[in-house]
């Protein structure tokens, strides 16, 4: 026993395992024990792959090259839409439980394990990722680590809950409209949604092919960078994955803000934000000396993302709606049925606008290197809360937690979500960079972490 590693960072664990100060088996045992203790409260895990994890940890301990593995012995878990060999990929649904168990892990799991990481399980999520709450009618909700009566955020709610709640230092999730950034914000952790096409989605269950991204969650920026660097690289099995060389980010974090011009999004991105969201944004803006800019037509971008999501999601699930409508989460089913009825002419218009908007936003990056914006309009709502009031208008929580994330993922920009540790509940800020400049987003996030402005608060558990 070499200390408690249940709140250690991935970098600390990798260093300790690599140098032989602790065994991967010991870290894995501690993590499995803490999952066993905390998961009954937080409901973050839907499957724990203990036997596999123990075997993998022993193999790392026996490896002569373990000191060179950047994630040696680092436990991680994945949203249950990633294929895990031997398990059906449920994607938060009841319907998918009948799927044939996956014959092979998702590519990103393979890449993390190739650098020494140890998969410990699958994580709860909103059904078929059509969700911003973290609630799930089949598995029950994943719960917020800072208040189990509150939402973890969705759809990667289990990922937020597990990392924020100290059950794993690292998790993977997906983000179509905000599903990495929303749980990061509500659970008070760091999240990275890379550029669209950067990380392969091969052997993960899709939602909206035009908008789906995968990415990591962690409690420090360095851990985000280490895991992201381990997962980069072209993969022909994902049609959207772009063939470009891996571009490491971890070695450049220390460059900090040097030479970077940061702007803060005004207009749409302040409308409807709670005092907490605005307070966090203003604190970050001040720390970065950011000047205000306007992202043009952001409301329309969000509207277009909404239309594409509803219709592509409906297309994906059309046969399941016809045959097994009663087996869906009703909230998801009714949105998908409505999506199936939207005329295709309107979807084409949304895709037309997408290209126009992309050009308009890319022009902004001639004047700045990063843009900050709120991640969510509010801190974590109570579980079961259906509506909230934003800017004097009562709106449904489920689709509207993504107000500020949707206009960004709509054009695939890379974003690091950073937690501002407000009390009693944290809230996130988005650090948005130009395409393929994850390094910039992570450098800004790292600088904020160094300044003490961004931090993943440790919950009292």
């Amino acid at each position: 026993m070499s200390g408690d590693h249940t709140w250690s960072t991935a970098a600390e664990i990798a260093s300790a395992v690599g140098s032989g100060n602790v065994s991967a088996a010991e870290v894995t045992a501690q993590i499995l024990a803490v999952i066993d203790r905390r998961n009954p409260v937080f409901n973050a895990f839907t499957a724990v792959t203990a036997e596999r994890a123990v075997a993998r940890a022993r193999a790392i301990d026996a490896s002569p090259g373990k000191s060179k593995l950047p994630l040696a012995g680092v436990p991680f878990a994945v949203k249950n839409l990633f294929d895990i060999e031997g398990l059906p990929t449920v994607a938060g649904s009841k319907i998918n439980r009948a799927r044939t168990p996956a014959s092979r892990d998702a590519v990103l799991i393979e890449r993390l394990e190739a650098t020494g990481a140890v998969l410990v399980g699958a994580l709860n999520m909103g059904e078929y990722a059509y969700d911003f709450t973290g609630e799930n009618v089949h598995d029950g909700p994943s719960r917020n680590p800072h208040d189990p009566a509150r939402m973890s955020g969705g759809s990667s709610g289990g990922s937020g809950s597990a990392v924020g709640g100290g059950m794993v230092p690292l998790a993977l999730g997906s983000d179509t409209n905000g599903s990495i950034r929303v749980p990061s914000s509500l659970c008070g952790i760091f999240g990275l949604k890379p550029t669209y096409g950067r990380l392969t989605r091969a052997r993960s269950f899709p939602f909206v092919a035009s908008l789906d991204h995968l990415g990591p969650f962690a409690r420090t920026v360095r851990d985000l960078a280490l895991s992201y660097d381990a997962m980069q690289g072209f993969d022909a099995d994902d049609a959207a994955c772009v063939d470009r060389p891996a571009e490491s980010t971890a070695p450049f974090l220390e460059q900090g803000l040097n030479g970077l011009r940061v702007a803060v999004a005004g207009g749409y991105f302040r409308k409807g934000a709670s005092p907490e969201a605005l307070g966090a944004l203003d604190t970050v803006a001040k720390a970065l000396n950011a000047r205000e800019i306007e992202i043009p037509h952001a409301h329309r971008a969000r509207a277009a993302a909404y239309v594409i999501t509803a219709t592509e999601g409906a297309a994906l699930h059309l046969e399941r709606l016809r045959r097994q409508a009663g087996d869906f989460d009703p909230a998801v089913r009714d949105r998908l049925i409505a999506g199936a009825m939207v005329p295709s002419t309107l979807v084409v218009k949304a895709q037309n606008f997408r290209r126009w908007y992309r050009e308009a936003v890319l022009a902004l990056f001639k004047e700045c290197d990063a843009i900050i914006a709120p991640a969510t309009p509010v801190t974590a709502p109570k579980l079961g809360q259906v509506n909230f009031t934003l800017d004097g208008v009562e709106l449904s929580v489920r689709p509207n937690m993504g107000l500020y994330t949707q206009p960004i993922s709509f054009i695939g920009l890379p974003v690091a979500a950073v937690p501002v540790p407000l009390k009693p509940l944290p809230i996130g800020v988005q650090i948005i960079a130009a395409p393929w400049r994850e390094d910039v987003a992570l450098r800004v996030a790292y600088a904020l972490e160094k300044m003490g402005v961004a931090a993943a608060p440790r919950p009292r558990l």
Partner: protein
Amino acid sequence: MTDKLDSYIEAAAEALNLPLDPAWKPAVKANLAVTLGHAATVAEFALPDEAEPAPIYKV
């Protein structure tokens, strides 16, 4: 518009062979109304005929 949307939903469900339990209709209608509202927000922004869609999206 309200009655037209009800009629449209019933006709679309029939044409698309989608099940539509009467109990689901109010939520389907509410969701469709929101989505069509968003679609109108997009459509009201005039783009030239030459504007290309981005169905395959390379950033």
